[in-house]
């Protein structure tokens, strides 16, 4: 079986994951963006242009943190996996698929204990979170961006799932861009929450919808574990270091 990492390192997959999973966590990030938006001054809230700029900056900050985390995971992956060559890569690919499948089961409501994965980032969050609180009330765009940077490290099982996917990208740079693609996927739901709060919240609470998203994530996990099953694979990563071994 030819080795093909194209699927798991696909930015499209990361974007789709972000898009699908973000609707699930509207409750968490939705309330944060709602809090941030309403705590802005009435002048900012009264102007669509200014409000959009602030909301965009919050999210740019969040995406910056996602990219940093992705780059970090990529570096760790290259240090720990490189000595084991293709076998090491395959191991990390399977581990990533297990985490993705678990998050799918979690979203579908079949594996609530997956939420314990959030404990992973709790220590870092406890150190960062006070800096974030000091930035509130946010009064300028730089503060909005910096708050977003802190917000990006909020313990979240779905972000960790995306990081597991990013770890299979093959390099720090690609891991960072995988996380960027994931973050961009979350933008419509997180930014749209102010506009379509009712619709999105209702959608995110529908059991059938959650199950559909969960099954989608499990399918992605299966394809990630067995890339040769995926009909969309276009091998664009032939120059990856792992293939050179």
């Amino acid at each position, binding site marked *: 079986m030819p080795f093909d990492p194209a699927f798991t390192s696909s930015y499209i997959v990361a974007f789709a994951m972000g898009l699908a999973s973000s609707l699930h966590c509207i409750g968490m990030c939705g309330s944060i963006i*709602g809090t941030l938006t309403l705590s802005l001054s009435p002048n900012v809230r009264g102007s669509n242009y200014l409000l959009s700029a602030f909301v965009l900056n919050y999210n740019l900050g969040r995406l910056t943190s996602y990219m940093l985390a992705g780059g970090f995971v990529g570096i760790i992956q290259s240090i720990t996996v490189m000595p084991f060559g293709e076998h090491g890569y395959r191991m990390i690919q399977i581990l990533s698929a297990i985490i993705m499948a678990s998050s799918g089961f979690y979203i579908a409501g079949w594996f609530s204990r997956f939420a314990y994965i959030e404990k992973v980032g709790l220590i870092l969050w406890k150190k960062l979170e006070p800096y974030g609180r000091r930035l509130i009330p946010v009064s300028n765009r730089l503060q909005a961006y910096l708050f977003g940077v802190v917000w990006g490290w909020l*313990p979240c099982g779905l972000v960790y799932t995306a990081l597991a996917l990013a770890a299979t990208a093959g390099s720090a740079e690609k891991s960072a861009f995988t996380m960027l693609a994931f973050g961009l996927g979350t933008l419509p739901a997180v930014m749209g929450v102010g506009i379509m709060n009712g619709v999105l919240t209702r959608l995110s609470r529908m059991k059938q919808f959650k199950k559909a998203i969960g099954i989608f994530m499990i399918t992605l996990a299966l394809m990630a574990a067995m890339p040769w099953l995926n009909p969309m694979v276009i091998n664009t990563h032939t120059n990856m270091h792992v293939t050179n071994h």
Partner: protein
Amino acid sequence: MDYFSSIIGKSPELESMIRSAKIAACTDVAILIKGETGTGKEVLARAIQKASRRANKSFLSLNCAALPEGLIESELFGHKKGAFTGANNNSPGIFKAVDGGTIFLDEINSLPLAIQGKLLRFLDSGEFIPIGETIAHKTNVRVIAATNTDLNRLIIEGKFRQDLFFRLNVVPLELPALKKRSEDIDLLINYFFKYFAELHSIPTPSFSKAALKVLKNYSWPGNIRELRNLCERLSILLAGKTIEVENLPYEFEQVREINKSENFILPECGVKLDQLEADLIYQALDRTKGNRSKSARLLGLTRDTLLYRMQKYGFGLN
């Protein structure tokens, strides 16, 4: 200082809610706390107030269900002398009295529709008109509301204003029911036992493993309040002792029976297994009105196994 340490628990659901609450506490936005009765909505509201910039200002907790409908408007927004029979003095109302502070409106679902409109106006502009006056007053009060019922259902029934719901629901914080975080029961018990031991100057009791299992399987309709009361009662009655299953109150009887049934003891006279099995299948089908999937779940079987056994004992499949 962590003002949220008063909320005991390590379950991911609770921790995630506290993370949102900490961010919301730093702002001045209205908050809606959702949760069943006894989940600790007021404790959370107080923690938010203490962690906010209004920590040194007044905090007032008001149960909307406890106020008579005719008085609630006057209580909240005040009245002018002579505005109605019995209004012998000017009353500033709670919103004026708490100026600069935080007001916690518990059971907001019980607020009459007319008052909901006034509250919405206050949340939007900070203004309200006391009864009998024509000029709007302005105050700076942060509102934290709480509900133990589904407001969406009340909106459909026409008992709650949708616009007020949207205004309050910007930061929804949902306190999970105790049955959904049974892993926190140990922590809560330890906390309450220690608290009551200090309060009443008595030695701390402890639960046996079997009793703890019963507590974890219990549905806790009264949530943390019910657990707190149980801990206080047992702290006093069985101070310094090990609490066994038999020491638990009557309401735990059902859970005790379920736990016992896990270890079925064969009677001395033996059983007719086929007859017993057929009887159990009959009872399950009777209880579920013939629904075979539900019956299979009740008996801990797969649907196919149930169908096979139904055939075996001559139950009509149709």
